[in-house]
């Protein structure tokens, strides 16, 4: 008789614990709880897989790729815009990287710079179309996604470019080598997450980005260049897409023009599952990191748990809807 009541009191205490979390940290907190529950479910469903280090090494291979480009999407979402063109930007910047590698006798530095420049130009073009010509970012970047992948296919002309000779170079081990069981790209993406996190939450550019999505008129009245801020967010996406492409090409020692496929929905899901609201004005970089982990664990975990790959999409759907419900519970109007 006594123990269920005790459990009830304990539960209520736990719930009031949620209320005691500072409001700014609630999206992060919600994403964290969700991730934890999902991991518990995976471990119960398939303890042999999820209590073994192997699965985590596998997940850490691809997690950074989603994290890096996802980080930049937090900025554009907080700025009240959206970018759907990053998958094609990944393909195009990957091509720029691969092509320049071939032309420069495998000069990594020049190739990486050329990929970053191409990415920045794609972002600048998006920014120009959206902020100067006043087009909707949703439709503009949807169109750009088609245009850029088409351009990539035309330029690449069906070639698969391999760089097996890079396999034992220092560059490759610096970027995608392994430190014990942890792939090097995990450190790069973590470092980038910290830098962009500090910029988003503490730098005036981060503040202007949030104001751009919240009340651009207020920003303009106080002398903030909203158009430039949004354009820089688009450029950031281009640059992060290039980072993803570079790591992707190094990881596989191969470039193929479909390398950007499969990024669009999981990365957007990572942003929203992480607790960044669609409505702009707010965002959380820490949440994105957890959101990306959630998404990648589903992708890998569903298969590893012995389920058919089709369950991945089903899992995505459940996770997105339930995590939004969770954020709504923790953070009120946040997810509308």
């Amino acid at each position, binding site marked *: 008789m006594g123990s269920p009541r005790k459990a009830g009191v304990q539960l209520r205490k736990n719930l009031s614990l949620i209320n005691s979390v500072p409001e700014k940290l609630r999206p992060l907190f919600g994403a964290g709880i969700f991730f934890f529950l999902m991991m518990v479910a995976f471990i119960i469903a398939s303890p042999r897989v999820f209590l073994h280090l192997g699965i985590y090494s596998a997940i850490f291979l691809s997690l950074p790729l989603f994290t890096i480009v996802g980080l930049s999407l937090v900025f554009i979402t907080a700025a009240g815009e959206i970018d759907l063109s990053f998958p094609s930007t990944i393909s195009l910047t990957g091509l720029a990287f691969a092509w320049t590698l071939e032309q420069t006798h495998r000069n990594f530095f020049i190739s990486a710079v050329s990929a970053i420049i191409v990415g920045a130009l794609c972002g600048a073009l998006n920014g120009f179309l959206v902020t100067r010509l006043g087009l909707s970012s949703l439709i503009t970047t949807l169109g750009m996604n088609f245009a850029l992948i088409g351009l990539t296919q035309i330029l690449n002309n069906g070639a698969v470019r391999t760089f097996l000779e890079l396999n034992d170079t220092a560059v490759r081990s610096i970027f995608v080598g392994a430190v014990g069981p942890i792939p090097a790209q995990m450190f790069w993406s973590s470092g980038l997450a910290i830098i962009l996190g500090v910029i988003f939450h503490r*730098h*005036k550019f981060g503040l202007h980005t949030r*104001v751009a999505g*919240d*009340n651009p008129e*207020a920003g303009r*009245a106080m002398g903030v260049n909203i158009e430039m801020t949004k354009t820089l967010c688009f450029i950031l996406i281009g640059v992060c897409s290039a980072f993803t492409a570079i790591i992707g090409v190094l990881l596989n020692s191969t470039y193929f023009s479909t390398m950007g496929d499969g990024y669009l929905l999981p990365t957007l899901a990572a942003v929203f599952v992480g607790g960044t609201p669609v409505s702009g*004005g707010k965002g959380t970089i820490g949440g994105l990191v957890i959101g990306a982990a959630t998404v990648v664990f589903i992708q890998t975990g569903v298969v590893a748990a012995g389920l058919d790959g089709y369950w991945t999409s089903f899992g995505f759907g459940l996770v997105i809807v339930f995590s939004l419900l969770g954020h709504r519970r923790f953070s009120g109007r946040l997810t509308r």
Partner: protein
Amino acid sequence: MTSEVAPIVQLQNVSKSFGRVFALEDINLDFYPGEIVSLVGDNGAGKTTLTKIISGTESPDPGAKIMIDNNIVKNWTAAKARSRGIETVHQNRALSESQTIYDNVFLGRELTNSLGFIKRKEEVAETEKLMRKIGYTSKVWTPNSTVNKLSGGERQGVAISRAILFQSRLVILDEPTTAMALSEAAEVMAFIQNLKADGKSVIFISHNPWDAFSAADRFVILDRGKVVCDEPKGDMTVQDFIARLHGFAKEGRGSVA
């Protein structure tokens, strides 16, 4: 106000026409330090146009003379007005509601280190000082609270705090109490009195004759682009004031203030 003190702003022969319509016609007004001027008049009387000219966001027709501290200024712009200590609190308050109070107060003029990172502690401390100065009494909210948690009056307080940042001398308040509950409006009126106590000048635009009367040291009534009354409060009663407003309204288009 005595004429021994130099006015902050002097307007001479200021007109503004939009096409063939005169929004302002031959305005001559002085604004002195430490004085609250209520600017009243019907919709379309030219109140907002006049304040836009003072704050540099609108330029007057040729032939107008704007003097700041007894010096004629040319090519008067919003940036110049700000650098001379003239700040406007806009009707819509221009706040980013998902951000904190201190982020809003310093928006566009952030205190940063050389890399552009915001000096949060300094901004919070400075914001706290400003809020105390204008008499922000709420104990629930701190500079760290987000603006969407505040009442309308408290939001106006944030906008006013922002206006007195960096030594402003003349604060223009465009309809600060519109669409507010009575208690909130009273809060804003207290902020305005604290501005005066701090030595700032205020131009106060209002549709509400009671607020306009209680706040002011001097009244300027505009009617269809002209100054029809420019009088110190002296021993004028609120009845006199309202009678005056009604008088012009009757001659004019029939609606009050």
